């Protein structure tokens, strides 16, 4: 594709500007898969339903309250941003803010104050997306920006986990419980494998059940909404890293299956790392991105101050995306194009 001829052509015309006989005059691509932002976001939300269902069972009311709060915050920021930038409100209805809010809610602890969740949703959209120019222009995953803000703003509230009904013993109002990763970091007793897969452990709303995340994630991959490359590279890298650490020091580090099923690993691999905007476009770039996130998660989990490192891993790799993109851009047929 030569830049000169392409630049001369006008940009693709919207449908309503079709010619007199209804023929659509536009630059390629001429075949569209019908994938609109709205449809993709709907599919993502659909894929999150198993997670939400499980969160509902585990955390009851707080699952609903937190999800509603973050989504409300995200939508409010989106609408406010459009208003300030004198844009139409279409980006409020395309569902992207709802997905951001839902992902943020699923990565928050259930005992969090709803007002903090609302704030996180607002900040995530306002500082993670609006200031960069709205959908498609953000450098970082907005949900993770919101969570990072909350993490630094309210560090105590973000790491306190209060298990709810299904976990507490009868007659006890509330107990606190370590998340599996915290237990691993402090070398306490670890929950059983089945608890990790099913999700009967402490943790953030959407991260406790590895199976629910896997079901939703596989649905996304099969439907073609999410690329298989990031999750595969991510889980493979993290798994290999965890297993090597386990072989070196079996007492200190649990093995690959523990790390892959605990914390935000499954949820993040399928729902956060596959975000279109923050990740590279090129196939190899996506593999590198996934592998980088997997590596950073494990480095932070095993050597860092925080028990879980998914958020920081995503944010760091988001900032590396332009570099990855530059390295992995394929050479077009016919030789190298001078940029």
């Amino acid at each position, binding site marked *: 594709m030569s830049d000169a001829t392409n630049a001369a052509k006008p940009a693709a015309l919207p449908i309503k500007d079709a010619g007199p006989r209804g023929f659509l005059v536009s630059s390629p691509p001429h075949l569209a898969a019908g994938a609109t932002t709205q449809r993709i976001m709907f599919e993502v939300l659909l894929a999150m339903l198993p997670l939400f269902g499980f969160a509902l069972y585990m955390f009851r009311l707080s699952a609903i309250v937190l999800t509603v709060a973050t989504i409300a915050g995200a939508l409010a920021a989106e609408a406010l941003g459009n208003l300030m930038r004198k844009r139409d409100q279409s980006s409020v209805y395309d569902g992207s803010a709802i997905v951001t809010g839902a992902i943020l809610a699923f990565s928050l602890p259930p005992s969090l104050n709803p007002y903090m969740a609302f704030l996180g949703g607002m900040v995530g959209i306002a*500082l993670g997306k609006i*200031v960069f120019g709205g959908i498609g222009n953000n450098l970082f995953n907005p949900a993770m920006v919101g969570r990072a803000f909350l993490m*630094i*703003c309210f560090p105590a509230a973000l790491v306190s986990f209060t298990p709810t009904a299904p976990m507490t013993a009868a007659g006890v109002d509330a107990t606190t419980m370590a998340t599996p990763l915290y237990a691993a970091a402090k070398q306490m007793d670890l929950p059983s494998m089945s608890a990790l897969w099913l999700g009967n452990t402490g943790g953030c709303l959407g991260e406790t059940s590895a199976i629910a995340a896997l079901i939703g994630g596989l649905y996304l991959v099969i439907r073609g909404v999410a690329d298989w490359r990031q999750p595969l590279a991510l889980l493979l890298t993290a798994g290999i890293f965890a297993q090597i650490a386990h072989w070196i020091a079996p007492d200190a580090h649990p093995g690959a299956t523990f790390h892959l099923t605990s914390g935000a690993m499954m949820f993040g691999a399928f729902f956060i790392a596959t975000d279109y905007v923050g990740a590279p476009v090129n196939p190899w770039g996506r593999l590198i991105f996934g592998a980088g996130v997997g590596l950073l998660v494990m480095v932070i989990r095993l050597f860092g101050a925080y028990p879980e490192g998914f958020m920081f891993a995503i944010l760091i790799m988001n900032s590396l995306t332009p570099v990855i993109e530059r390295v992995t851009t394929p050479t077009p047929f016919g030789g190298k194009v001078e940029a």
Partner: protein
Amino acid sequence: MAAETGNLEQFKTGILDNNPVLVQLLGMCPALAVTNSVENALVMGGAATFVVVMSNLITSLLRNLIKPHVRILIFTLTIATFVTIADLFLKAYLFKVSQAIGAFIPLIIVNCMIICRAEVVAIKNGVGKSLADAFGIGIGFTLSLLTLGIIREILGSGTFLNYQVLPKTVWDTHAWIIMILPPGAFLTLGVVVGVVNYMRERGKVGA
């Protein structure tokens, strides 16, 4: 810079159109580092105002004696002298704040806002205009720091000049700790500069 501007104009431009922090984006380092409380912001602003006024005064008085090729050296020496005075003064009379601000008072020496005023205004203009400019810039700088300090202290600690303004019971557990940490400085500065730009653009369209 227009050739003939009155002293009042020169004074006003430092506060509004040429506000050092919010428009020229000079002196970012203290603006980010010491605005976590109103008190620190005020002291920093006061110290910087003192230095810019004195440095503009001396530079303006010496302007016919300074050879062009050594002017930067003279500026720096002049500024360093008054920064040392300010530093010792704060250590003597406001020891606690001086401890809190730490190295940022001595660092006023390398604040490009001050050397910029010497180079742009004081070396070319009389004492009156240089002083008007220095006061304008100093006040503009102080007001910007104050804006950041007020936002950050109220949200981050729930206080204003150490008086509780937001309900203590709530803010003891729900304070936005991020606001008194470095990330809060960047966020606040970014938002404030954005708002200022927005208002300036609107002013232009309206006029």
